[in-house]
């Protein structure tokens, strides 16, 4: 199963429509399930829901063989946590899909680092979906403890 998610805050019809089309064209033969957000385009070729609870979302990530999504941090960290191959298409300011182009920057950075694949336009999607077949994401090692220690050191200094 391919899990397609675009978050829940704003629609991202450009991606949903594009995936709907390539499923119809047979580029994707695997089952697709999507979280599409409220007031979104409803795909014809696979099942979708507006919004999943956190637990159900995590469950879909776990069960997915691959993921496709917007370049939101929730989507990226979810995929990386379970080592799922993820293809993102960033939301763009140009299409009023987001207030600035931070998703574009994130998509570039994380794909450069080998954590995800990125397609920057719907035209690139079919080819990128094929690459997703044998993409092995590079593990991302976060270091929240060192950040906490730095802040702890600061807070301790405050009390002296």
């Amino acid at each position, binding site marked *: 199963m391919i899990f397609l998610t675009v978050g829940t805050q704003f629609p991202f019809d450009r991606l949903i429509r594009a995936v709907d089309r390539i499923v119809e064209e047979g580029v994707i033969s695997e089952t697709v399930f999507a979280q599409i957000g409220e007031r979104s385009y409803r795909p014809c070729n696979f099942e979708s829901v507006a919004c999943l609870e956190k637990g159900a979302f995590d469950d879909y990530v776990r069960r997915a063989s691959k993921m496709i999504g917007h370049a939101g*941090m*929730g989507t990226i960290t979810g995929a990386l946590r379970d080592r799922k191959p993820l293809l993102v298409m960033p939301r763009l300011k140009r299409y009023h899909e987001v207030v600035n182009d931070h998703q574009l920057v994130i998509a570039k950075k994380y794909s450069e680092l080998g954590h995800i694949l990125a397609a920057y336009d719907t035209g690139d999607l079919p080819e990128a979906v094929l690459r997703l077949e044998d993409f092995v994401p590079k593990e991302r090692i976060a270091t*929240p403890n*060192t950040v*906490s220690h*730095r*802040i702890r050191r*600061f807070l301790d200094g*405050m009390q002296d």
Partner: protein
Amino acid sequence: MVDVAAKAVEKPLMCLVASAGGHMSQLLELGEIWKGSCTFWITTASAVGDRLSRYGQVYVVGECNREHPLRVIRVFLRCLQIVFRERPDVVISTGAAVGCITCFLSKLCGAKVVWIDSITNVERLSLSGRMVRHIADLFLVQWPELAEKYDNVEYAGTLI
């Protein structure tokens, strides 16, 4: 008067503030850095609020961003009320607008300000971060390149 005297011997009061979603997930990655402090939380949506309530008082102030000036004013007034009532000794934030507002108001009350710029800011600091940098007592970023680009900015690891 009694309150002021009592506060002097009490644990420091810590304000943890972040918008719901990615900013809050990053803040929560700090682990229980708030242990040993009295805390209160400010966030933008009640769904997260419920999860936080076991760590202390939670204020939900509603969403705001620069696209909606009226909402910014409403959130500003809510935060003003909260900060002047609570009088935190230290505020820790990962952003975004609500964090920026709270940091400035808390600084006016004499609080120390700790800012961790969100991981989504790869090439330059967030708009909020660029403002808070001037008043922050500890300013952390999650990409080493950013620490080289700005003064008084430190890289101490990544939260996600």
